[in-house]
């Protein structure tokens, strides 16, 4: 299952299939661009002493697309963004595979780094996607940043 919205300037997607980073990078090419910055988040096998087998992502896909579009619009106010793309994968994401890819094209390189950093940082704060760790010992855990355990 995949959801997407695509205009000439921005492309947001939520999909179960592996992400196509090449297609994302190709979308970002623009004759007025001097710099393209792409960030790819991948499933890390080891965090501290804990071994992750895989991650499972769940999204509220329709709202996730809205939020990603809103973030792209916010970035375009702050930086001269020529193209922006935000893609998130859902379902099982094995170790070393990409869960998220975010990219920005701007006339100059400093802006591409800043806008890309902004998009991935904000995506992790506001886009309704949730991650469940599946550990090598068989246990599982929803990752809930900022939630302390005295529920």
């Amino acid at each position, binding site marked *: 299952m995949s959801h997407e919205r695509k205009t000439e300037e921005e492309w947001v997607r939520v999909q179960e299939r592996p992400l196509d980073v090449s297609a994302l990078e190709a979308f970002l090419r623009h004759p007025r661009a001097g710099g393209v910055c792409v960030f790819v988040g991948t499933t890390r096998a080891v965090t501290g002493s804990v071994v992750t087998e895989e991650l499972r992502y769940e999204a509220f896909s329709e709202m996730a697309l809205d939020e990603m579009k809103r973030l792209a619009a916010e970035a375009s106010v702050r930086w001269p963004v020529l193209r922006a793309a935000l893609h998130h994968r859902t379902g099982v994401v094995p170790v070393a595979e990409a869960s998220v890819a975010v990219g920005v094209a701007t006339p100059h390189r400093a802006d591409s780094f800043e806008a890309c950093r902004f998009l*991935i940082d904000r995506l992790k704060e506001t886009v309704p*996607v949730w991650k469940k760790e599946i550990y090598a010992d068989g246990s599982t855990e929803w990752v809930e940043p900022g939630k302390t355990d005295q529920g």
Partner: protein
Amino acid sequence: MSASEPVRVRLFSVLKERTGQSEILLDAGDVDSVGAALSALGRTYPVIADYRRWIRPAVNRAYADEDTLLKSGDELALITPVSGG
């Protein structure tokens, strides 16, 4: 009983898992605000009461708050702390 459309509550992640529900319909006449809906849901599902302080409610796919008014046909999503990326 109201003849109008219900408020459609969407649950994800830990709340979906622990309530066993991905969608709950509430009578729009009974819950005129997000806060009222959360209180009603918390009475039936203790985990929603437990999570209330960490839930960011979204109405019709945009972040809202407890004071946001609800009307017939609205969609209320209970967004627990997100962890995409």
